[in-house]
């Protein structure tokens, strides 16, 4: 039991070191500002995506409907 618990602690303590190391390196090497990583471009490209039209049309229709009724 002591061995087991000890290993858990040693392991997670090492991980603390690792996270601190990552944070340290991260501060040293500033992330290059990449304009192509904007939220809009983060979608994975995929062949002939066509699922954009439908929801937009549905939303437009819903808005239209909503306006008529309110």
């Amino acid at each position: 039991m002591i061995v087991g618990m000890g290993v858990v602690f040693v392991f997670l303590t090492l991980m603390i070191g690792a996270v601190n190391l990552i944070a340290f390196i991260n501060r040293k090497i500033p992330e290059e500002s990449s304009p192509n990583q904007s939220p809009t471009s983060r979608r994975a490209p995929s062949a002939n995506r066509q699922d954009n039209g439908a929801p937009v049309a549905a939303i437009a229709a819903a808005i239209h409907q909503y306006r008529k009724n309110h």
Partner: protein
Amino acid sequence: MEKLEILWQSTALAHFETGQVIMMLVGLGLLYLAIVKKFEPLLLLPIGFGALLTNIPLAGFSEVGGLLHYVYEIGIGTGVFPLLIFMGVGAMTDFGALIANPRMLLLGAAAQFGIFATLIGAILLNYVPGLEFTLKDAAAIAIIGGADGPTAIFLASKLAPDLLGTIAVAAYSYMALVPIIQPPIMKALTSPEERQIKMAQLRVVSRREKIIFPLAVLLMTILFLPTATPLVGMFCLGNLMKEAGVVDRLSNTAQNELINVVTIFLGLAVGSKLSADKFLKAETLGILALGAVAFAIGTATGVLMAKVMNKYSKADINPLVGAAGVSAVPMAARVVNKVGLQANPHNFLLMHAMGPNVAGVLGSAVAAGILLALVN
């Protein structure tokens, strides 16, 4: 008449055994907890239903050729289902709070003390007449203290398949009982002043750190604890898919449709292990008792560790957040937040508790790997 006799013989009424009736009541009880009490319904509803199905005489759900037999062999016998759940949970988990304050990992470690205390407890229970646990059984039971359902199912499927149903039910039940089990322990071990401690706001974590984190966790697991890599590896894969930002299609599927499908079948398969001959024995009471003890100990050691850290650390640490180290994401963190608000209505601890909370998931996966290495 002969046909009627055949039909009568084909009713369950002619074949029911007492054990099966009791187990079906257990199944109904689980459904009650899931639907009315809202105890971890995503798992307990399918588990309860599986328990109903598996105990029907003649239907043969869990015999060769039956649906539950296939689902169990393919999904749990191979360990695939808990791993897929872990991938999905990884894709839902935000490690930001933990990366911002990595010392919270110590709380995730401390709360695993419940696991190892339970291991001793289970071995000691062998001295109680009528109870017999092998070392493997004991390790599988101990993991209930990890407060993490898929980890418990994964370890039990490897070490003690016969106890799997009981262990899974205990794990999910106690996870659901976190709001009842934890607060008294938390209050008993802390003073009102400690419970009011405010913690410094967490720094913003960059996307790059969030991407590197799962890889670092995987790398360290690979180096130091390869037996933990199935669980940790799939968890990190899910998390990497989420944070990478380039495979959102895959990440969304992993945390929605895929995990939902697997959850249905995992629950049914676990329920199919709730048969009378495996559940209605003295050992089950021992397991349930040990599970409760494990939760209580894990909560206590988490809180105590947080008190120690608060004493020796520059930054203030509210000892309550230690209780979130048992995992049971996100329930335990919410309980911490609630108990904290009772002490100070303006002190929101939720984000601070998320760090130990996700650390607890890693901690119990690591503990599972250690148990696998030690007893297998």
